[in-house]
């Protein structure tokens, strides 16, 4: 029995080590899923915790955050039972990921989301941390819901709060400022603030690709399509294989339609549609369907009534010959986007998501010729 345990422990640790150096993605996730499964056949809580801890990261950055959450809940419970045994900082840092992604699931109620944020705040306070990160995530949540006043209030509070070891990294903080200025409608200032990121002076795991992506449409608004194209190239090459960045990839998708690179947009649709199916994150799906809708409408207006596309076989309208009526596709994506918008709005108690669909008409005006 004990020899068997040693084998499993060794195997679990080996899987964790190997996964550590891997690129994000399915293989890394399934390797760590295996590590968790094996660890769970032992009674070694520490081993189970370590396997899950690695798994959480892989699942979160690999585009399956709901799996990350399930594992996180387990870890948090073990941490609460025996706080001396586990690393406090890490479990708190991971908490930010969880609140960051929880809104993306409309089946989670508003009350549950607020309770999570309260719980996070309580834990930050109890361990003597500042509330900068907590306010940041409250801001993001309110912004997500479409509660503008509340969002602005929390952003102010975040800016006033001190930085500490649970504050996001410098590159992320700058990117947050960029995003905030864009939210306020100050494109020019956002672009100026983004400069150190765009030049590669400050970077991290997800910046500057996030920054590039979020500036694409604003740059068109500012009449700088060539710069936008450059940023599109940079952003896309960095996130084309990163499922956790699907949200940002949708900006590339929108950009290509506006830039009138309909071929490029079609290729993006072919290539990444599968992600929205395999990925259960409804918010990502909403954004992708919304962008697809814009693309299809643009194609239609350009007189392309039929499109040749290599869609995944699982696509409900799949055609083996790869020929699709643009109008059919548009209807399909439009209906899915509306359906999701309605679900989000029902949960959020606002009409922000429906409004974001309507906004596409304004965004379409930015089309370059």
């Amino acid at each position: 029995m004990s020899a068997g345990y040693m084998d499993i422990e060794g195997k679990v640790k080996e899987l964790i080590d190997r996964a550590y150096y891997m690129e994000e993605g399915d293989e890394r996730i399934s390797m760590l899923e295996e590590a968790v499964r094996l660890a769970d056949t032992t009674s070694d809580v520490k081993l189970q915790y370590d396997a899950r801890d690695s798994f959480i990261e892989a699942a979160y950055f690999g585009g399956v955050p709901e799996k990350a959450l399930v594992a996180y809940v387990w870890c948090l419970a073990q941490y609460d039972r025996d706080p001396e045994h586990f690393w406090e900082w890490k479990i708190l840092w991971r908490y930010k990921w969880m609140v960051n992604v929880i809104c993306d699931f409309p089946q989670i109620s508003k009350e549950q989301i607020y309770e999570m944020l309260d719980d996070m705040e309580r834990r930050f306070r109890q361990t003597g941390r500042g509330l900068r990160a907590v306010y940041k995530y409250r801001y993001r949540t309110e912004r997500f819901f479409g509660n503008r006043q509340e969002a602005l209030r929390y952003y102010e509070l975040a800016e006033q709060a001190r930085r500490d070891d649970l504050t996001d990294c410098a590159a992320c903080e700058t990117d947050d400022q960029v995003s905030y200025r864009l939210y306020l409608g100050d494109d020019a200032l956002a672009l100026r603030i983004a400069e150190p990121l765009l030049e590669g002076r400050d970077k991290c795991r997800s910046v500057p690709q996030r920054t590039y992506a979020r500036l694409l449409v604003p740059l068109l608004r500012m009449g700088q399509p060539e710069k936008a194209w450059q940023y599109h190239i940079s952003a896309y090459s960095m996130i084309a294989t990163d499922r956790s960045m699907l949200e940002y990839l949708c900006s590339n998708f929108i950009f290509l339609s506006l830039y009138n690179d309909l071929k490029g947009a079609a290729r993006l649709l072919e290539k990444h549609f599968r992600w929205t199916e395999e990925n259960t994150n409804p918010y990502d799906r909403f954004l992708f369907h919304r962008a697809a809708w814009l693309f299809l409408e643009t194609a239609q207006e350009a007189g392309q009534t039929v499109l040749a596309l290599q869609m995944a076989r699982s696509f409900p309208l799949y055609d083996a010959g790869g020929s699709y009526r643009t109008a059919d596709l548009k209807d399909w994506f439009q209906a899915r986007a509306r359906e999701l918008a309605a679900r989000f709005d029902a949960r959020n108690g606002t009409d922000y998501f429906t409004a974001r669909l309507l906004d596409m008409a304004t965004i379409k005006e930015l089309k370059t010729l």
Partner: protein
Amino acid sequence: MEYKFQVNLGGIIDLLSNHIYSSPQVFIRELLQNAVDAITARAHIEPSHAGRVWIELPAPAGGEPPLLIFRDNGIGLTEEEIHRFLATIGQTSKRDELSGAASDYIGQFGIGLLSCFVVSDEIVVLTRSATGAGGTTEWRGHADGTYSIRSVEREMEAGTEVRLRCKPGSESYFRPEEVARLAHHYGSLLPHPITLTTPQGASLVNEEEPPWKQEFASAELERSAYLDYGLKTFDIDFLDYVPLHSAVGDVRGVAFVLPQPMSLASRKTHRVYLKNMLLSEDAEGLLPEWAFFVKCVVNANDLRPTASRESFYEDEALQTTRQALGRCLRNYLMDMAESAPQRLKNLIALHYISIKALAAEDDEFFRIFVNWLPFETNMGTMTLTEYRKEHETMHYAPDMDQFRQIARVAASQSLCVINAAYAYDPQLLLKFQDIFPEVVFRKIDANNLSHNFEFLTLSEQDEIVSFVEAAEEVLRPFRCSVEVRKFSPVDVPALYTASNEASFHRSIEISKEVTDSFWSSVLDRLDDQSREQSDGRLCFNYRNPLFYKVSRMQDERLQRLSVQVLYVQSLLLGHRPLTSKEMKLMNEGLLGLVEWGADIIEGGVQ
């Protein structure tokens, strides 16, 4: 009224040494860079000028700290230029002031000389300009931010000499072996001769040209020169080499084929030079993602480095370069498929993952390589082409878990199943379908495998009615349904099957066991409510002798205990972790059986 900030030079130096550069030794790189840039500038006004660089470590004079002298015959500086360039932080004689485009020069950030303060408290620069008539000027800069300038009576060729006196603690950077190593490390590809003179004698640092700059009399000579270069550079005996070039970025170099398989996991880093000066030993992102079977040495004359000078800036030029380098590797493989199939076979045995990655994104490549790429099946490794010759329908298992569950059972039914759990395999199978639409593909998991199991006859069903009822009752709390079929191999008493959603549900159950009601309610929301009533199915094997006995047991309690143990055993066979409920079930089952066995023995003794 305008004021100027007082900048604390000591602080700046500290920042530089701790933050911008990865280590103090880069002062050698910066000095080399300054020298080469000065030579480039002189070549603009004197095209035939032959640039040279000298590094000298004089024998230490009684108790004095070591001295390092760095000299070039480049453009030199006039006194006025010294004031302008050497005294102003963040500006060197490189940007706009000198002739030629800014991109002719290596240094772009104008902090080169400052990095010397990291190893020396005083920098002495002696210089004479090649442009003017002026004599030799001496500049002395101190780490506290002060400097002095004077004309000196010294005959000197046009050029610049930098003298560094070792500061306490930096002795290791002034050791002859270390200076030689660093000069070679950074400057081995530089086009101008660099002479190093130490008390032991003089030698040329960059004697040898990289192989891609040489001409060879024969293919064999070329091959051995490249592989020697690889061995010397990386201390690895490479399998093969591929010359690399890209017009965009002005890139030349070589990719070495690694002699061991690389996992997706390992970092793929390369040794890159910018304008022949070493930029980084572990640059990433130079090659397309799939190309992880090689390690490269590459010089780029026209790519932009990042501010930290550790890799290239991610822009369109880099992207185009990456594609061009990828094409070099792709052509290499395609040529080999044509001309040296046996060598390709050996290479694929080592590096099939990398090659699969390319095939997954490149149709034309895929069509050729599909005949070569190995896939794991429950009947051994084979290519898709080989598989197709033997089997009409292609069966594959979507993940490792499913594959493991069904491998044996499927094999005993002569069903050859591809394990499509590995990276790129699912994409390649999809591609195969696209290219050969007539091939029928079937995803197979334990669920649909068991659909093919033979049904029982009516009379056989009648025999086991009471068993099925009892088993259903035992397993209902575990959301597991019960079935009895006939299947091979006969030594498997029962097969447990679960869907992917069920696995997710299972992980939720495990988390819910330890968490509180709030988190449980959150997890419940994530759990797909529309999922089928049962999570799993336990399919008993009517042909299995043990099952045969259990199904006919008269003792109801004993039968229940046996079902419990069979259920848990089939979970364990599928490497599924047990929930605490199942653990309890196993304990009850095992202990119950032991007790029953003990009773019998006791009964026998009596």
